[in-house]
């Protein structure tokens, strides 16, 4: 960058070709460099896989930060003022909280809501007060020389270090596929105890700087605790609904949809800060409400963008914070006091353990799945301290005499827990064989039966005239469907979660196949189908036959699908959908209809990581090796095909076929429409033409799909949003049809 003067001024010195103007760009430049440095560190860790398995990322980041801090210290530079109150609370904390709350799996969360709240609120209170009082007791001991720390200050310090931070723990939990209940409780607890801590912090802060404590003031503060918490929730709900409402109208301006989400969340946060109510609660509630409705309204691209950006921002914030933790550790002045700090550490661990023990004993009777001792150990040991503690320590008011001591203490606790507990938690949990989740069992059968159970239970409850949590869920869902959705969502077509699951599995398998298919879609058809012995069709007892491989031909070669993968709920908050829009399987129709179906929202399904292979069709021949495509034998045979997804090496044709089936476009593919296998009585013989599918589609006795070509009865012509299901009668989820 150079600036040269236009005309020479006699009084000036010689012009220069190149000038440096550092102060102008200093701030953005430094910020960029720091972020880049932290990102390099992060990239570097993953170069060698084993590291991140055994050592949580936060440890590594702190270590790098320590190194950089050492370097800076040796050249006597000051670290950037990242950890001032405003910078942290206004810029760095919101993305983290948004990230956590956006990827919170809602259904298990609400099912465990009571437990989460119990641990978060009561647990944090217990910890803070316990640690505070014990530290105060320690302070009385003359040997440590810290007698001038009064009770309020101790309580303040205690509230800072009792907040737990989920990042490292959750990664470990995910890696070892821990029991979902435990995961959700830890996750939820961390989220909410941030809010509680901040409130407590402000409370004690207020109290600590007062020369004398009046009882009335204290009660007022306790009352304000509730106001703050509930106020935050209220704000969050408000902004969440407004955001959802706004997205209803953004049909034509898709590009700003992600922006709406971020803006509204941030606005919720800031407004709450304005009124000094719990901004964390506000943003959490906002994200939770928004997510449900917004993800139905926005386009697929926007949805992906939102998720990616939120993930990115959260990740960047976390990285930066841990990094600076390391840096600042070296560069600040410390006040060290062996006794106080070691006892702090001890009490932090002790009280957390005690707290979990006691609280679990109290709440276990209310839980359907009680926590056993291993779970409790996991909960206790997983209480790592992190970012929020750190920032709060730095924002302590100067009037507190031993601020440096507190900062040192906090840093020690954080580093201890992150390093020692973070590294050892994984082998310990594995050793103890904590309850795992059975995620791979989430197959169609299971989903169906679970739903059946729910219905049965709901039915029996109606019979008994008793209420239980299904009642509230049903009530809410009914209210939701009738009123809220109509207002907030552009078009309301709820879909059964079983179908959603089915489609999702199909799609995933399809995508898997696609992913591993190299080359373009050629006419290499193969299809798994089931032969049906027609002669048994008339009998009431149906038999399944195992399959025979048949091939389909260039039926599909000319037809490709445009797929929009709809949103999936995750338990692993860092797993995002693959961006598959680059690869499409397009389906060209004779009249070049453009169809868009919305696959429906998979909100709240409990399946996280689905098994990739949900159906393994028994195969006589080997599936893995690509079998040579055989020309399909025709009219003599009756072929009833069924969706089967197997190994990824399976040819593409199958994929397209299933997808088509999944999305109910079965007039095009005679094969797809033949899923009603095992004979209706009027199932006639069908022959498959291998030529263009347009003509000569013999309609089987299908009631619903007797569409003439080119009709768009099933599909509405949206602007390529997603997949839309055709509503038939009144479209409501079974659980919600409860007349009042």
């Amino acid at each position, binding site marked *: 960058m150079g600036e040269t003067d236009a005309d020479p001024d006699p009084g000036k010195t010689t012009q220069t070709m190149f000038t440096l103007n550092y102060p102008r760009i200093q701030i953005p430049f430094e910020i960029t460099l720091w972020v880049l440095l932290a990102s390099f560190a992060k990239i570097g860790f993953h170069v060698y896989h084993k590291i991140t398995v055994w050592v949580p990322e936060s440890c590594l980041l702190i270590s790098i930060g320590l190194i950089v801090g050492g370097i800076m210290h040796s050249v006597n530079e000051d670290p950037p003022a990242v950890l001032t109150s405003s910078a942290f609370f206004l810029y760095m904390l919101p993305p983290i909280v948004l990230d956590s709350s956006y990827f919170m799996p809602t259904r298990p969360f609400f099912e*465990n809501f*009571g*437990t989460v709240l*119990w641990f978060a609120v009561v647990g944090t209170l217990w910890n803070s007060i316990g640690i505070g009082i014990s530290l105060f007791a320690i302070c009385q001991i003359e040997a440590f020389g810290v007698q001038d720390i009064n009770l309020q200050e101790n309580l303040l310090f205690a509230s800072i270090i009792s907040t737990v931070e989920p990042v490292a723990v959750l990664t470990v939990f995910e890696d070892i596929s821990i029991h979902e*209940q435990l995961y959700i409780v830890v996750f939820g607890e961390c989220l909410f105890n941030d809010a509680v801590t901040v409130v407590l912090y402000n409370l004690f802060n207020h109290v600590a700087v007062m020369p004398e404590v009046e009882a009335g003031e204290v009660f007022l503060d306790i009352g304000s605790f509730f106001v703050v918490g509930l106020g935050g929730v209220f704000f969050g709900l408000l902004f969440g609904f407004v955001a959802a409402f706004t997205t209803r109208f953004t049909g034509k301006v898709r590009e700003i949809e992600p922006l709406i989400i971020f803006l509204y969340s941030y606005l919720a946060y800031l407004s709450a800060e304005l009124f000094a109510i719990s901004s964390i609660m506000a943003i959490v509630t906002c994200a939770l409400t928004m997510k449900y409705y917004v993800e139905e309204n926005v386009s697929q691209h926007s949805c992906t963008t939102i998720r990616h950006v939120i993930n990115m921002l959260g990740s960047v914030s976390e990285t930066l914070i841990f990094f600076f933790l390391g840096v600042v550790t070296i560069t600040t002045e410390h006040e060290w006091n062996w006794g106080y700090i070691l006892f702090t550490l001890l009490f932090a661990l002790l009280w957390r353990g005690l707290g979990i023990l006691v609280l679990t004993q109290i709440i276990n*009777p*209310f*839980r*359907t*799945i009680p926590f056993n001792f291993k779970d409790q150990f996991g909960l206790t040991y997983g209480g790592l301290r992190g970012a929020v503690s750190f920032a709060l320590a730095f924002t302590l008011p100067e009037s507190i005499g031993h601020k440096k001591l507190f900062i040192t203490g906090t840093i020690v606790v954080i580093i201890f827990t992150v390093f020692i507990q973070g590294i050892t938690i994984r082998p310990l949990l594995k050793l103890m064989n904590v309850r795992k989740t059975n995620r791979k069992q989430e*197959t*169609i*059968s*299971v989903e*169906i*039966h679970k739903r*059946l*159970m*729910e*219905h*049965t239970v709901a*039915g*029996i*409850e*109606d*019979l*008994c005239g*008793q*209420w239980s*949590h299904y009642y509230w869920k049903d009530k809410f869902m009914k209210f939701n469907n009738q009123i809220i959705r109509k207002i907030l969502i552009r078009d309301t077509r*709820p*879909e*059964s979660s079983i*179908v959603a699951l*089915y489609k999702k599995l199909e799609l995933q398998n399809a995508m898997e196949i696609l992913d591993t298919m190299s080359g373009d879609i050629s006419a290499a058809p193969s299809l798994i189908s*089931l032969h049906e012995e027609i002669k048994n069709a008339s009998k*009431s007892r*149906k*038999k*399944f*036959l*195992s*399959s025979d491989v048949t091939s389909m031909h260039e039926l599909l070669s000319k037809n490709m699908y445009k797929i929009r993968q709809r949103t999936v709920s995750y338990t692993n908050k860092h797993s995002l959908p693959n961006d598959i829009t680059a690869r499409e399987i397009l389906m060209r129709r004779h009249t070049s209809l453009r169809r868009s179906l919305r696959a429906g929202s998979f909100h709240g399904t409990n399946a996280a990581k689905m098994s990739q292979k*949900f*159906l393994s*069709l*028994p195969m*006589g021949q080997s599936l893995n090796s690509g079998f040579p495509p055989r020309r399909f034998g025709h009219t003599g045979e009756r072929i009833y095909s*069924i*969706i*089967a997804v197997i190994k990824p090496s399976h040819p593409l044709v199958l994929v397209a076929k299933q997808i088509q089936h999944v999305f*109910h476009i079965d007039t095009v593919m005679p094969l797809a429409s033949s899923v*009603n296998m*095992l004979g209706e009585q009027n199932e006639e013989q069908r022959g498959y033409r291998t030529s263009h599918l347009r003509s000569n589609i013999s309609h089987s006795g299908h009631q*619903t799909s007797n569409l003439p070509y080119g009709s768009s009865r099933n599909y509405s012509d949206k602007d390529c949003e997603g997949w839309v*299901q055709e*509503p038939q009668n009144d479209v409501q*989820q079974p659980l919600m*049809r*409860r007349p009042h």
Partner: protein
Amino acid sequence: MGSFQSLPDNHQYRTLSQKTGFSLEQIGILHNRFKQLSQNEETLRRDDFKTIQDLESNPIRSQIIEAFFDKRNFQKDDVGSVQEIGFEEFLTVMSYFRAPTHHITDEQREEMRRAKLRFLFNMHDTDNDGTITLEEYRHVVEELLSRSGALGRETAKGIADAAMLEVASISVGPMAPDEFFEGITFEQFLKILKGVEIETTMHIRFLNMDTTVLCK
């Protein structure tokens, strides 16, 4: 069976309590409900269930109602169905939905699980041949999806078929080209649902609960 007067008959309650595992208080509450449903008669008929409004919108209500009249659920090793049931049978069917208490042994837990799953199995296996055939399964899936209304019968069938195949592959393994798959037997059913915590999902809290509404 005897007639139940309006005053709780403690002796009978006690035998019932032993048999079904409910507490006396719970039996009292359920008895009141029974009387309300049956309009103070001694027996309950299928029509009486129609008075329950909320049940009408349940997609599998017919199966639920039928389960009450299914003799297999009365723990008497009988088959077939009856037209009317008394309080004892009502209670027996309800007992399938009891929550496991905290202090039961693993064996008892396993037994309870089996009993609940057997109940579910019986709900589907309408012809009582010991297997859930494809047709029965399809019927179930159709019922389930019927209220959502967004799908045609074909998708429902497709789903049922897919699920059936899945069970086949899990339980039977790769089959030769000409083997038959009859249907899901009870053992296979157990196997499929091995991972699901039935005893905790399929239960009702039979007393009034206020505080426990939000905890799972």
